[in-house]
């Protein structure tokens, strides 16, 4: 009996190259190496300042170019160095209030914007992009000019009040931009249904719409907080009466060449806290997903 070979084994199998395909193996390997180098370079570029700040924070020598021995005294000094502590307190005060106010107002504004006609909407979104894209220095100067022209009516206005207003001004667009896409996703019938069931418009806004856009509000809030916490230029122009936030304090200490290593310690602490929060929130989220899947 003749063994029957399958047909394809009787002929030479065509290789993919015969169809004009080129493997480019060398270029692929080269690209891979370049890609890894670039990624390492990018991570290096972003992390080297953080690493230096960390080294500086455990360095017993106050000279920035020398490493003495490992110490934790700067971490203790955060709470004893008066001017730094005040600056930290001011930063926290301003950024928490600015975040709360702009989250609340930004959500309401976004709901208002979502109901506008197309043309008016485009108009307001263009205006909304101005604080977002404007150069910090131009925003800062603009706000300063407006606030200084109001000084006649409100003396002693400059200080935390102007800084808070300025922070609300530049954090609002972030909240509006985070909430708007969520509003587009919700089903308009939900709101109509709640009205049909006899709920008044504003209570149903609170009971129906707000829960549906919760995620957008939350991400807007986080963005607003980070922007406000780290701001320098706008705060620098709109503050007064010796009200310093952390950035302004760092800037003026640098000018006097008297930057205390405690601020490095504080910065390291903040980074660690952010990192921990990130990991914890991620773990919690993972668990929730796990529970939902079961």
């Amino acid at each position, binding site marked *: 009996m003749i063994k029957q070979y399958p047909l394809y084994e009787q002929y030479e199998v065509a290789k993919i190259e015969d169809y004009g395909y080129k493997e*480019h193996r060398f270029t692929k390997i080269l690209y891979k190496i370049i890609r890894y180098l670039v990624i390492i370079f990018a991570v290096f570029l972003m992390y080297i300042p953080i690493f230096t700040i960390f080294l500086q924070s455990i360095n017993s020598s106050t000279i920035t170019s020398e490493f003495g021995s490992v110490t934790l005294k700067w971490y203790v000094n955060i709470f004893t160095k008066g001017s730094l502590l005040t600056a930290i307190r001011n930063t926290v005060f301003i950024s928490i209030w600015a975040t709360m106010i702009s989250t609340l107002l930004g959500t309401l504004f976004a709901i208002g914007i979502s109901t506008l006609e197309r043309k008016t909407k485009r108009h307001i979104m263009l205006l909304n992009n101005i604080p977002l894209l404007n150069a910090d220095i131009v925003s800062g100067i603009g706000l300063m000019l407006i606030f200084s022209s109001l000084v006649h009516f409100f003396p002693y206005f400059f200080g935390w009040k102007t800084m808070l207003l300025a922070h609300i001004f530049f954090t609002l667009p972030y909240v509006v931009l985070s909430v708007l896409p969520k509003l587009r996703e919700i089903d308009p019938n939900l709101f109509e249904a709640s009205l049909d069931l006899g709920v008044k418009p504003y209570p149903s806004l609170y009971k129906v719409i707000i829960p549906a856009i919760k995620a957008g509000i939350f991400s807007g809030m986080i963005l607003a907080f980070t922007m406000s916490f780290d701001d320098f230029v706008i705060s620098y122009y709109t503050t007064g009466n010796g009200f310093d936030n952390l950035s302004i304090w760092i800037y003026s200490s640098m000018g006097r060449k008297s930057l205390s290593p405690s601020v490095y310690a504080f910065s390291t602490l903040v980074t660690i806290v952010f990192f921990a929060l990130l990991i914890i929130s991620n773990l919690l989220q993972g668990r929730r997903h796990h529970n939902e899947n079961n």
Partner: protein
Amino acid sequence: MNKYFKKLAIPYFVWLYILAIIPFMFMVILSFVSNEGLDFSAAIFTLENFGHLTASSTVIAFMNSFFYAVIATIVCIVIGYMVAYAIFRSHFKNKFLVMTILILPMWSNMLLRIEALKNLMEPHNIITDLLAKIGINLSLNIAGTPLAVIIGLISTYIPFMILSIYTALEKIDYSLEEAALDLGLTETKKFWKVIFPLSIKGIVSGSIMVFLPCMSGFAIPEILGQGNILLIGNVIDQHFRNMNYNLGSLLAVVILVVILAAILLVSKFDKEGETLI
């Protein structure tokens, strides 16, 4: 929903007009007059300020700002695209977490990071000191040079580029890629014909978010340039510190024109501003 909440947007219009539009008009007026600070009682109309625009120091500052910002933006696009694409293609379970950890440095104070970079660029710094202790002698002296400023700009603003390119990549429908492969494209062709065109939106908004602060910032050139390098932000800051509001406002208005062009560009590419955050 439409008829009930329309009025919620009205206060925002008022707020934006007062705090975003009126200051611009204020600055335009200031740039056409000559007065003391904000006292308009003795203001006289003059075009003298415009003469200062062509002064060599201002022109050099503008050119420098533009060049530094362009170089930093281009480097950020190349590196940022590669990093964002690598994360997008990686097999991590939670890519968003990897992304956030990558850009974690963004959350510590910018001025402090710049100060740390400046210290590293001095010939003697904490890392060379530590390395010398284990017998490696390494020295780098670029503090106060244009290279230092450009490195500072890239290091500070690259997270924005990575984030916005990544956001654009995430939004690409996977079935488009499958379709491209089904139609016989190779991986490289698929990238250039499908993925890259769809991620241009992210590149544009990322570039704007890198270019504008690079061009107008004054802290980075001041700290890393150690006074050798003046960008336009430094010039504006100096004028306002010397109470020369007229010239400062004029320069701010010039920057503003560039920014308005950028805003129009964004609204053309991205109607709802969804890649801006």
